[in-house]
C-alpha cells in the first residue's frame, strides 16, 4: 500500500508538469487555432533564465518569479512578431513554424548555456514525510500543489474577471469580439504570454528532477500532446485530468506490469491515446466540433 501511494503521488507530480504544458498548448490553440510545438522549448528557455537569475545571487523563488514575468513578455512578443504573420494561413505552415521555433530555441539554449546537464535547485526540500505508512517526497507533493494552485488561479481569471471574459470571447469568435471593441491583437499577446508563463512555472518545477538541458522537455511535450488529445483540446479541465491520469498510470504500469517496466512506460500514454482516438476522437472530455461547408 505504501509503494502504491508513493507511486500515485509521484505520478500526480509528473502529471501536473505534463498538465501545465498541455494547458499552455490548449490556451494558445483555443485563441489562435494553432498547436504550439515550441511550448516545451519556450519553457526550457524560461528555466535557463531562472538559472541565470539564480547565478546573479537572487533567491530561488525570486529567480523563478522573474523568469515567469520575462516568459510572459517573450511569449507575447513571439505572438506579435512571429506567429501573427502566420495566423489564418495553412495549418501545415503553422506546424512547421512552431517546430522551427522549437529547434531554434533549443539551439539558442545550447549555444548560450551549453548542452551539459546543469543542476537546478528545487523549491522544496528533498526529504519526505510519512502519510498512511507511505513515504511521500516533498518535491512531488509540492510540485503537485503548486501547479494545482496555479490552475485554480487560472480558472478564476477566466471565469471571474473582465480580462478572462475578453480572452474567452477572442478565442470564441475573433470577429464578434473586435466588433464589440475588444483589442484582439493585444488579447492574443496576453494569451501567448499566459501560456509561456505557465510553461515557465512547469519548467522551473521539473528542472531539478530532470536536470537542466536544452532538450529537457522534449519527452514532456510528447506527454503533454498526449494529454491534450486524451482530454480533448476543447476542455482545459479534461486536459489536466488526462495529464494526471497519464502520470499516474505510467508510474503504476512501470512497477506493476512486469512486461512494461521503466523502459517501456512511455508507451502507456500512447496505448491510451490509440484507444481514445479509435473510440472517442474528440477526447474523453472534449466536444465534437462540426465544420460547416
Amino acid at each position: 500500500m505504501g509503494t502504491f501511494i508513493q507511486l500515485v503521488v509521484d505520478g500526480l507530480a509528473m502529471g501536473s508538469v505534463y498538465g501545465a504544458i498541455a494547458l499552455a498548448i490548449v490556451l494558445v490553440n483555443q485563441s489562435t487555432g494553432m498547436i504550439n510545438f515550441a511550448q516545451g522549448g519556450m519553457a526550457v528557455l524560461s528555466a535557463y533564465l531562472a538559472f541565470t537569475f539564480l547565478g546573479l545571487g537572487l533567491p530561488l523563488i525570486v529567480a523563478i518569479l522573474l523568469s515567469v514575468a520575462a516568459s510572459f513578455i517573450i511569449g507575447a512578443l513571439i505572438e506579435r512578431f512571429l506567429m501573427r504573420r502566420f495566423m489564418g494561413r495553412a495549418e501545415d505552415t503553422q506546424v512547421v513554424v512552431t517546430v522551427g521555433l522549437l529547434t531554434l530555441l533549443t539551439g539558442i539554449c545550447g549555444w548560450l548555456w551549453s548542452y551539459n546537464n546543469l543542476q537546478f535547485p528545487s523549491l522544496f526540500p528533498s526529504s519526505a514525510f510519512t502519510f498512511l505508512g507511505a513515504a511521500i517526497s516533498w518535491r512531488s507533493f509540492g510540485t503537485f500543489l503548486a501547479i494545482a494552485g496555479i490552475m485554480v488561479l487560472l480558472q478564476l481569471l477566466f471565469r471571474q474577471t473582465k480580462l478572462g471574459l475578453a480572452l474567452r470571447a477572442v478565442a470564441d469568435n475573433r470577429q464578434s469580439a473586435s466588433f464589440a471593441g475588444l483589442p484582439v491583437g493585444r488579447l492574443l499577446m496576453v494569451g501567448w504570454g499566459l501560456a509561456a508563463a505557465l510553461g515557465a512555472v512547469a519548467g522551473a518545477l521539473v528542472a531539478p528532477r530532470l536536470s537542466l538541458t536544452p532538450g529537457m522537455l522534449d519527452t514532456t511535450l510528447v506527454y503533454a500532446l498526449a494529454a491534450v488529445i486524451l482530454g480533448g483540446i476543447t476542455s482545459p479541465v479534461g486536459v489536466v485530468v488526462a495529464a494526471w491520469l497519464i502520470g499516474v498510470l505510467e508510474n503504476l504500469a512501470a512497477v506493476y506490469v512486469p512486461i512494461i517496466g521503466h523502459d517501456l512506460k512511455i508507451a502507456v500514454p500512447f496505448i491510451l491515446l490509440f484507444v481514445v482516438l479509435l473510440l472517442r476522437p474528440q477526447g474523453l472530455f472534449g466536444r465534437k466540433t462540426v465544420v460547416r461547408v
Partner: protein
Amino acid sequence: MTLLEITDLTAHYGPVQVLHGVSLSVPERGAVGILGANGAGKTTTLRAISGAVRTGGQIRFEGQDLRGRKPNEVAALGIAHVPEGRGTLGNLTVKENLQVGAYLRKDRRRIQQDIDHLLELFPNLQERYTSNASALSGGEQQMLAVGRAYMARPKLLLLDEASLGLAPSTAKTVYDAIRVLREETGVAMLLVEQNANLAFTIVDTATVLETGRSVLSGTSAELKGRDEIRKAYLGG
C-alpha cells in the same frame, strides 16, 4: 446632421473588386436600408465601415475618417455591428455575450439596467440567461446578437441580414424589438436586408446596390412605388 457619409467606396477581395463606388449617408437618428441581390456588396459595405476590409474612397463618421482604423477602434467611436450569421460567442453564456457587448463601457450600474431592460424585451433570452449561447435557437441567437450590439450603447447600429434563416414570425419579432430599441434610444441604423418588405417596416430611406455600385436611392415610399423595386425585391 449627417452621422455617416460614404463616398465612392471601393473594395477588393484579393484580385476581385467587389465594390465599384458605393455612396450613401445616414443622418443622425435615421434608419437607412441597403437593398440588393446576393453579391451586390451589401455585407462588404458594412464590413468596410467596421474596418474589417480595406477600402478606397471615403467613410466619414461624425466628421472623422474611418479608413485605416481597426474594428475595435471603430467600435470605440460608437458603431456596433451585428454581423451576418449573428457572430454568436457560442461557448459563452447569454449573460457573458451581453457583457462582451458592454466591454467598452465603464458604468457598471447602467450596464445591469440595460441587461434587465433587454431581457424584458426578449423574454426568450431571460429563460436562457445562464446557458451557453450555442444552445440557443437561430431566432434567439439573432436576438442575442442585437442585444450584444445594443449593450455597447452605440450611436450607429450596423445590422446585417437580421432575418436570415428565420421563420417569418421570428423575423418579425426580431424586427419589432429593433424598432422598439430605435424608438427608445434614437440610435441610427444602417441595415442590410434581403427581405425588403421587412426592411421597409423600419427604414426611412434606402439605397439599392447592383454589382458593387449604388444605383438608386430614395425614401421608402418612393422606392416602394417603383416598378423595378417591386418586381425585384417585394415579390411583384
